[in-house]
């Protein structure tokens, strides 16, 4: 069971990493227009102003 000493910190780290990533997506307002972002990828226009 010594492997737990490594595995548990790893799993916790991955979890915290994911949470941090999520906080980053929220800070950069990536949930403001989910439908628009889904459609914009189909446009061949170059979208260089992704912020609102």
């Amino acid at each position: 069971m010594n492997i737990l000493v490594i595995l548990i910190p790893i799993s916790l780290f991955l979890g915290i990493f994911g949470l941090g990533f999520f906080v980053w997506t929220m800070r950069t307002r990536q949930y403001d227009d989910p439908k628009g972002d889904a459609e914009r990828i189909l446009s061949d226009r170059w979208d260089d102003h992704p912020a609102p």
Partner: protein
Amino acid sequence: MSATDFESGGAVACPACIATPAARGKGQAGAGGEETILALPGVHCAACITTVESALTAIPGIGDARVNLTLRRVRIRHDGSHSPEDLIAAVKATGYEALPLDMVALSSTETERQSRDLLMRLGVAFFAMMNIMLLSVAVWSGATGATRDLFHMISGAIALPTVLFCGQPFFRSALAGLRAGRLGMDFPISLAIVLASSISVYETFHSGHHAYFDAAVMLTFFLLGGRYLDHRTRAAARSAAQELAALEVPRAIRLTEGAEETVAVSDLRAGDLVVIRAGARVPVDGVVTAGESELDQSLLTGETLPVAVGPDSVVNAGVVNLTGGLTVRVTAAGRDTSLARMADLVAVAEEARNRYTSLADRAARLYSPLVHLMSFSAFGVWMWITGGDVRFAINISAAVLIITCPCALGLAVPAVVTAASGRLFRLGLLVKSGTALERLAEVDTVVFDKTGTLTLGTPQPLDLDRHGADDLSVALALASVSSHPLAQALAGAARARGITAAAVTDLREVPGHGIEGRLSGARVRLGRAEWVGAVPGDITSTWLGVTGRPPVEFAFADSLRPGAEALVAGLKAQGMAVHLVSGDVPAAVADLAARIGIADWHAQILPEGKSAFVADLSARGARVLMVGDGLNDTAALAAAHVSISPATALDAARVASDIVLMGQDIAPVAEALRVSRKAVRRIRENFGISFGYNVIAVPVALIGLATPLLAALAMSLSSITVTLNAMRLGGGRE
């Protein structure tokens, strides 16, 4: 091209992209000054975004235009040289409808902040739940002794802060409910979360077998999910409906000792003199002292025929002055105007409607006492059976609370409402009120207003083929100099037929009468029947008079709103009783009723009459859907079981109605009724599903066989089934 284009272009490293960047950079220097936001009910795809954005950015002075497809609006940054009207015209030129949004209302980002706050809590709960689940799987699959205790401890270390942070919305609302002396859905939720967490802490320190940390966090996550869905749907609809800018400007031009000054309507007193320009809305009740004009009363009374006014005529707030300037002595302003009295009627009617209890409330009222009763009796019974084993008895009662906890119940309504509102939003309908969908589903009678609702309120000339080309060319020459709606409609229709204007000279507009000019020496007139020398009929028309010839009549009919016929046919197919109630003259109402197939129509009904008509239908047991736009409909809109008004309606009407129709096409209303009935069926199904799970799981918990594994299974299974069932509604493209 600006420097930023090159920088990001290098990062993308695609020659084609660099070759065809959007025309964004230009005007950037002058931009940033002002921002305008427009609602775009019609956008729905990538091509729409591109069309609107490139059309707008091509206009000089506009720095940036960004379409938000989720909220269906466009944010335009410009240098301040564009009025919202210009921008709307620019968007309309690309073929999309656009409506102005109120900047002041938009700048209040309170709801946005709340929604981000909820989302943050939801995210934290999700990650905590996933980590605890990993640890719990190990415990469920048989970890024992020190390993289990360690896993419980780590779970607790993750769960406790999570619950404290993420559970706040429930704790706060439960506390508020307690202070107000009622047990909502949030009290059992909070109790279950707190009890589950604290008992798990106790068990962990006494190396017990069962810790419910996973259940507590899962509960928080699922319920926050429901809360977030609920909040997002409501916020989107509410903001869009409220932020549609006021059509009427609350300012007036006061005449003080010969000098004109612009003042707020609220500053006017009885006895003041007010100047009302042609095309403006009358801000007060009063008596005309000077000037002649025609008034469009359609928003107030539903009458499409303009009314001539001169000195000593009485005018009411809300009507539109059409042709000439008027000076009006104020008899009532502010709270005493007929407009404000109408608002009082609305307040009374709305109070009656607020008594509606939603399905969720009814379920909660039944559910909360039952759950507490069960949990406490389980505690008592097990205390008695075990002879005072408090730890065991509390374990059982906590398990009961967790298992019965309304995960599915908390998700059942929001998930369905979100799916249904999304569906309606795609159809161009904004649901403002939380219970509107449920009320809409009960509707069996539909009452329509005529002007502005089934019609567009814009006249269209009839049978232009009957007239000779020379008559039309004279009429066009005269009509094109006037801003009167009939004249404009006539001029537009004549131009559309390729008619060129005759060489009419000395054109002048006679306020309240029409336009006069000279055609090769003869006097020609276009205007009111009496003025031209004809006998007025009872349909909307304007007359062309050339000296020495009998006058020619140009008849007009209100143009039908697109989809009106299909809507009435659709409603009849659904078995609804359809009524038409209008303030307009009988001939006009009868004509329209015959055209779209409504057998039951009433004409010349006053605003009080409309609301009485609706109230009478309701008293006889009918559930009435009122569709109207004018001030005269406002009281009826509020009195009806549920109401819809088009986005072009007056503020008061939009405020009074539950659902706002964003597009011009009215046909989606029939689909909305279908969707709402389906939604209510799904809500009931969802209640059934979660009740079913409880019927199986609760006895297990009561006899003390509940394990954290069973709790986790019951909770996630019921939540997922309920959500999937709700999502069946949103599926399918229209």
